[in-house]
């Protein structure tokens, strides 16, 4: 445990109180929900922990805008919620089953995963592919942005002064699937892919593909999505997609895997996810 400088623990009754406390610490306070990343944090300056799990942000519900998931909803709650299992072909459950271990999923929250957004993480790749929208509040106002856009900013700075409230996953007339490769069960990803397709009259009406842990964070491949539009889903198309990905994807090396391996396998995973999504969409 590295949080050796913590002096106080606060149980916030609502988001306003949590924000007020956060401001009072002038950068030396930290929001605590599942605590998974906080426990691993290298920060030594944290003096106050502000627990937000009692602020009413644990929920999963559906409305015309999509699936609304409160930020303090644990990964296990989300994994086993009937709404998330039905959503977009079951991609949430498919992804979360591959994230860490049950014991960690019981405490880790969707908000924590969104805000920490480690490059090797699976949930950011899924959220980017799904076009998730994040809603947060600071002391002045409530704001929202797509997770994809948020990740292009210095988002960690935002959440030093703000609290993520919820994620809104839009409804999709189609299916998403997720695949990852880790070294063993519960591992972080060496590579992950989330892909979705919608079909109209036998042709691809929309496509979304995100690849993560390249080793950079999950990003969509718009050039690939564009290439797929209007095409008939078949093996040749998936093969072409694989070749395109191998040709164009930006990958790198780290101590877990080389860029060369990631380039080749990214193509394979994209082909497989697209084929599987199309298969499920047809059904």
């Amino acid at each position: 445990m590295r949080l050796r400088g913590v002096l106080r623990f606060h149980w916030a009754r609502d988001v306003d109180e949590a924000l007020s406390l956060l401001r009072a610490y002038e950068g030396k306070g930290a929001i605590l929900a599942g605590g998974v990343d906080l426990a691993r944090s290298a920060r030594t300056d944290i003096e106050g922990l502000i627990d937000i799990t009692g602020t009413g942000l644990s929920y999963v519900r559906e409305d015309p805008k999509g699936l609304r998931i409160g930020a303090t909803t644990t990964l296990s709650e989300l994994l086993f919620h009937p709404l998330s299992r039905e959503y977009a072909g079951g991609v949430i459950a498919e992804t979360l089953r591959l994230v860490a271990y049950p014991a960690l999923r019981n405490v880790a929250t969707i908000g924590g995963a969104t805000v920490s957004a480690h490059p090797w993480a699976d949930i950011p790749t899924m959220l980017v592919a799904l076009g998730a929208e994040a809603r947060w509040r600071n002391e002045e106002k409530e704001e929202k942005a797509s997770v994809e856009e948020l990740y292009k900013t210095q988002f960690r700075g935002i959440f030093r002064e703000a609290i993520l409230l919820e994620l809104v996953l839009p409804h999709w007339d189609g299916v998403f699937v997720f695949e990852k490769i880790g070294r063993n069960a519960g591992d972080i990803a060496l590579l992950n892919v989330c892909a979705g397709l919608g079909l109209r009259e036998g042709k691809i009406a929309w496509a979304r593909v995100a690849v993560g842990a390249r080793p950079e964070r999950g990003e969509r491949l718009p050039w690939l999505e564009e290439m797929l539009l209007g095409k008939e889903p078949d093996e040749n198309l998936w093969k072409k997609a694989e070749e395109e990905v191998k040709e164009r994807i930006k990958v790198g090396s780290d101590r877990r895997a080389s860029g060369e391996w990631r380039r080749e396998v990214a193509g394979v995973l994209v082909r497989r996810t697209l084929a599987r999504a199309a298969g499920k969409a047809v059904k």
Partner: protein
Amino acid sequence: MAVILKAKREVVGQNVLKVDGLPLATGQPKFTLDMDLPGALVGKILYSPYAHAEIVSIDTSEAEKVPGVACILHYGNVPRVPYTTAGQGWPEPSPYDTVLFDKKVRYVGDRVAAVAAETEEAALEALRKIKVEYKVLPAVFTVEEALAPGAPIIHDEEDAEGIYDAKRNIAAAVDVPIGNIEKGFAESDVVVEATCELPYSQHAAMEPHCVIAYFDEDGRLVIRSSTQVPFHIRRVVSRVLGIPIHRIRVVKPRIGGGFGSKQEIILEPVAAALALRTGRPVKMALSREEVFVSTRTIHPAKVRVKLGAKKDGTLHAIELEAILNTGAYGAHGGTTLYNVGSKALPLYNKARNLRFHGKAVYTNLPVAGAYRGYGANQGFFGLEIAMDMLAEKLGMDPIELRLRNHIRTGETSPIFEKLGEGREGKPQVIRSCALEECLRIGAERIGWYEKRRNPRRKGPWAYGVGLACAMQGSGITGVDMAAATLIMNEDGSFRLLVGATDLGTGSDTVLAQIAAEVLGVPVEKISVYSSDTDFTPFDKGAYASSTTYVSGNAVLKAAEEVKRQILEVASEILEEPAEGLILAGGKVVSERTGREVSLSEVGHRAFYVANQRQIAATASFACPESPPPFAAFFAEVAVDTETGIVRVEKFVVVADCGQPIHPKLAEGQLEGAVVQGIGHALYEEMLFSERGSTVNSTFFDYRIPTVLDVPEIEAILVPSDEPTGPFGAKSIAEVGIDGPVPAISNAIYHAVGVRLTRAPFTPERILAALRTKDKERKG
């Protein structure tokens, strides 16, 4: 799978409840740190940030000012006594190349100083305030670099003893020729060669290293430690700190796993020195990161095996070369090196021409030490892949090749005499071997012949089966000794005092079963206490697969003597000669009259009534030979040819450990060893920066198999009857780790036709091998 025991026994061979099962399962405080001592200080260690450096100066003045700091030790204020951390029997075969704190550091993680303070925070702050000026020296991180002419000398200290060639960084070396190896290869019809490499890996015991040292009311030093070797700690601490052995007591409570890592004596002398200097109890516990960086690892090895055989598959020549990286210090370097040959080579004793040679080489990387398998796993990795290659070249089934060559009951190997514990060994004849049956049963359970003939393919997934064989030992011939004391209480129950150290294996239960069987009582009547150097007799410790065989034989002898004494007292009561009395079911019965007397009556008479005495015995067993357990390993794997992922679909391990005393525990040892071996095959590898620091020193980044990774494992015991073992038993602890790596590699080869010889077999390495093969095929 149920085992078939040779003879019906009441306790031995039964899956009795573990004697420590209930307290462990209910979380009773049992472990080293589950004891609070008032006024205990916290001990912490300052580690070297450099792989190789001289300490020019060390300034502790600022650190000493930190409130709560009681003591700081470093090279300047402790005696310099060379010793080895290896935790082996005396005289130690490992070099004396370590001192408590040195003026030179030899790897990132080498200890520089130790602090004892009132709190952990104060100790850590003091560590930060110790100013050390280093003169950084050139470092070597591979054996090739270390052996190159002009390489920096890692052990240039003059007082080190027992290093084979310090100037060339060679901790130990061996070259044993038998027959004529060159002629042997020349006479062979088929020759194959394989070079395999096993990297740095960690034991990953659940409980990190920890110790409490204090002086008791009589001023005697007490060390409570998570250790496999309490008696060796007592001897080594005595040497290092100059405290007589009789003034030291070492207590081993429950241990949360060791796998060899706690055969090393790492923290104990430091904690004892801090306690000695301060006069206060000192508690030390390593973090997981410290365990990775500063304790011990497996011996990374490059093993080259060359086999020559006749057309019919009979081996004619075997050359085995092992180059071990022993890291910055040579603990277990020579003995692990010897074990590569002494365990692997006797298995195929038909070859008349042998050569085993190799070196254990110093580098500026973490210190290698004892690790389950202890060289045998390194040796069988090379040997069993070479056997697979040979079978292919001969067009022979790999099982047939093994059957043609493996050692059998009544046979011997010249290796037993040539290779011992870092020196010459002793001749030995195999008195029990059921490997043939193990191979037959394993082949049947995995579906060997069908799957070898018709390998499955499903989309990108290619399936294959592979096998390996292995043998180990049961204790160290001519070195190991264990003793046991068995004392009868007046109610007919017994106290069994053993120096043997149950490190989670269940050996307390096994030893209790042996005593209970002889004494004709249920295990519940035997209270086992292990181990405490003040109260339990000597035992070499838990290593070298020795406890069931060596300590078990000591318990057997003690129990037989206690039985004799019981019958003597019963004979007085029943007024019949002892020869006509039977001890069973908690009583002594006359064969002739049917009259009986309970053990409680025997106990009360001996204690209080007539001819009063304590019924008790202490017996010792010195290991005259080391009967090998044998095992056959069968892996079925699926390889994703597009990503390189390998899945172990099923693993069958069939072992001959003689007569299993507790079949369930023996199966558990096999299963655990197989899982550890799967980790070595697929995930585990310590990685180092360019400066030699460990970069994946947590379980987040150093992956070990979890329950979610465990495939279907079938662990089957095929009993033989070892005449020298207690109730026919041999060892089981280590043999299970020797086979998974080569069996999985051979299965991958069967599935996709690429030979993986560098573990772990990561998706990246497999895919690269597949692409190389594709290119070669395309020409």
